[in-house]
């Protein structure tokens, strides 16, 4: 049996640094090892600082999930303070966060994922010419259109968050800027323009019609816009069967509001159930990290400078109930019980992940519009409260690419422990002590590698379908 090892890197069009080692047998991936090759040490930097400083530093872990990091830190601080945010501030924070997540979905689809279908490897396919015209890296008409639409809808962030990325607008008690009536109508105008672009170019149809799709069969008949082009490509390339996951999904619940999160919190494993974060453990057996497996309250970050085997990544391996879990837009929509997402989860491959993201984008527009219409300029948008000298707090949010958690311990008024588990820490985790592969590693097993393919294109689709963020992964 012929066995070859392929080291794929720099694995680009993902956020941050990624290296994938593939063991190939008989034209298929027999084993995959995923390495996050950059360590910066944010959890170490934060130790000893004033807890409020987390709000300035943690967004800078990641330039694409910046607001997600802000929101997780704000929730962790509020939890430690026992502070209930202003309901209107919470609504505005949700709107700001939703804009980032919608923009991240656009960036992923247009700039990271789709350009691979413009590759010469697909020349001759019926759709290839259109894929080149719309999605060739940096020059495709859809890529340019999406970048312009993204920049415009981010005017909401300029208005309400000062700038993007790296805002200090999101605070434990709400947001720093009180919106005016003028801000509300301006935000709505920006959102209408965004809806117009999405319905014209991206979906080629009404967003509500797409969000109402309830079966994969109906989905595959959608022919509008660039989404239609993607679905045509997906059907032709069998993306439904490519890179299938284990069918275990995790969501921390997106956009917490006083009445509960907009998209539900929970687990899905053949059926939905509740989530208890006390069952989370970060395993260090295959990470270049010293110490014992621990819940993030007790976790530590001590890099193994010798980078000794069996470690092969700076990424720790989070497990819940002892198992790896997939997280992301698909997981969110599955846990939220959307019928199309539930049916997509039966295959759980590249098509499911990308379609789950598009489904969420179609639903997010309505969420953002409702949040904007609900802006009450007369309300208070920020409340304040003291930080106890001894406290601990948990901040759980959903970044575009999945569940993000911050666990903060305060002692003598200073940060004594700060542990972060990012979405891609879950998805791209290395093996654990039992040898169980992380979700991407498992999804890559069996993926075809053609003879002489140095950068197997099917592998690229699978890896990018997770929308990884490597700078968050290790932080």
């Amino acid at each position, binding site marked *: 049996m012929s066995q070859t090892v392929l*080291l794929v*890197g*720099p*694995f*680009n*069009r993902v956020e*941050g*640094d*990624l*290296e994938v080692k593939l063991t190939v047998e008989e034209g298929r991936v027999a084993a995959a090892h995923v390495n996050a*090759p*950059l*360590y*910066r*040490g944010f959890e*170490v930097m934060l*130790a000893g600082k004033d807890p*409020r*400083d987390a*709000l300035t530093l943690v967004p*800078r872990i*990641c*330039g*694409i999930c*910046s607001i997600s990091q802000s929101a997780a830190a704000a929730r962790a601080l509020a939890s430690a303070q026992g502070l209930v945010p202003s309901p209107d501030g919470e609504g505005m924070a949700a709107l700001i966060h939703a804009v980032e997540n919608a923009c991240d979905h656009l*960036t992923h689809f247009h*700039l990271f994922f789709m*350009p*691979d279908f*413009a590759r010469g490897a697909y020349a001759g396919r019926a759709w290839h010419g259109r894929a080149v015209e719309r999605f060739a*890296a*940096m020059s495709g008409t859809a*890529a340019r259109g999406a970048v*312009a639409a*993204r*920049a*415009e809808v*981010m*005017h909401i*962030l*300029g*208005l*309400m*968050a*000062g*700038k*993007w*990325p*790296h805002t*200090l*607008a999101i*605070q434990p008690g709400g*947001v720093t800027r*009180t919106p005016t009536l003028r801000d509300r109508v301006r935000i709505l105008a920006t959102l209408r323009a965004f809806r117009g672009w999405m319905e014209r170019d991206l979906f080629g149809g009404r967003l509500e019609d797409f969000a109402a799709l309830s079966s994969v069969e109906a989905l595959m008949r959608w022919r509008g816009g660039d989404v239609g082009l993607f679905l045509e490509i997906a059907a032709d390339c069998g993306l439904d069967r490519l890179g299938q996951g284990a069918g275990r999904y995790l969501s921390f619940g997106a956009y917490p509001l006083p009445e509960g999160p907009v998209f539900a919190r929970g687990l899905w494993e053949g059926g939905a159930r509740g989530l208890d974060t006390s069952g989370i453990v970060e395993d260090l057996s295959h990470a270049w990290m010293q110490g014992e497996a621990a819940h993030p309250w007790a976790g530590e970050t001590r*890099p193994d400078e010798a980078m000794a085997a069996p470690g092969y990544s700076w990424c720790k391996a989070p497990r819940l109930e002892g198992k790896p879990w997939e997280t992301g837009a698909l997981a969110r929509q599955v846990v939220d019980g959307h019928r199309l997402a539930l049916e997509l989860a039966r295959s759980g491959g590249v098509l499911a992940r990308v379609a789950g993201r598009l489904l969420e984008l179609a639903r997010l527009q309505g969420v953002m519009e409702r949040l904007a219409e609900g802006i009450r300029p007369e309300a208070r*948008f*920020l409340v*304040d409260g003291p930080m106890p000298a001894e406290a601990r707090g948990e901040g759980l949010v959903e970044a575009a690419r999945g569940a993000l958690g911050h666990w903060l311990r305060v002692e003598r008024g200073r940060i004594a422990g700060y542990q972060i588990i990012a979405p891609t820490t879950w998805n791209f985790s290395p093996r654990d002590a039992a040898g169980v592969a992380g979700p991407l590693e498992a999804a890559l097993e069996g993926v075809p590698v053609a003879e002489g393919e140095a*950068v197997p294109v099917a592998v690229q689709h699978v890896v990018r379908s997770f929308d990884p963020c490597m*700078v968050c992964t290790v932080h």
Partner: protein
Amino acid sequence: MNLLWLQAAGCGGCTMSLLCAETPDVFSLLEGAGIRVLWHPALSVETGAEALALLEAVERDEVALDILCVEGAIPRGPAGTGRFQMLAGTGRSMLDWAGSLARRARHVVAVGTCAAYGGVTSAGGNPSDAVGMQYEGAHRGGLLPAGFRAAGGLPVVNVAGCPTHPDWVTETLMMLAAGVLDEAGLDGLGRPRFYADHLVHHACPKNEFYEYKASARHLSDAGCLMENLGCVGTQAVGDCNIRPWNGGGSCTRGGYPCIACTAPEFEEPRHPFTETPKVAGIPVGLPSDMPKAWFMALASLSKAATPDRIAKNAVSDRIAVPPRLRVPRT
């Protein structure tokens, strides 16, 4: 002109910010300026061996490298090996790659405060022993020596900011492409003067509050953020309020303080970011080019002269008292 972009140890936020460039979008702008992107880790199609082949061709001088953009700081750890960031698939550290490619580039641009001075990547004891391209904090001499000059004659151009404004990057690149950026166009810390000759204070919408030192007490208050909430906009370089962000924003417009993210060592202010350090009730770190005694005298005078409207609005989360109506005399 060929442009190669490396992402060292940072958050990728300067690229994300660059994508916010408008009228025209960043791709059209670069194309129009005659700048061809050889490879960008977030945007180019080439991956793995394809990308490596490009980098190696540059290293063998087979492809001219006109502009090297580096985003993110350069980790030297552990123990000087640079192994805290290995460029995936190459078995070599970013420390090694960035040094090698910088010596082949006509111009080297450090995009963002991490690449310029170390930035947030070097905060909190600097766990990865990260350094800027030509600076370590405020000290000259980083990955590249203090006296380094790229083949085009300029030291590393530090487009500092956390993140950088998209226009700071695109305008620097257009000036380099047009051959009109010379050393006189850079300030004493290597930053392009077209934005570094301004202060964040310029055109700050809180300026009327500043005039009277009518100060906010909480983050949502409308007043000036300098006295209590850590704002250093009067000392920080940047045209953030003259040429706002994302269609109209800035930190102070967003209701939170400027933390001088364009400056070396901003990541370690030695006090909480959102709290102004004081000695005997007086803020330390007053405007840098104003005699302290004059500042104190003017501040106490203007505080005493504060109109009721401004005093009330300063500690309100919205305009509580509008300007008095001026009725034309008939």
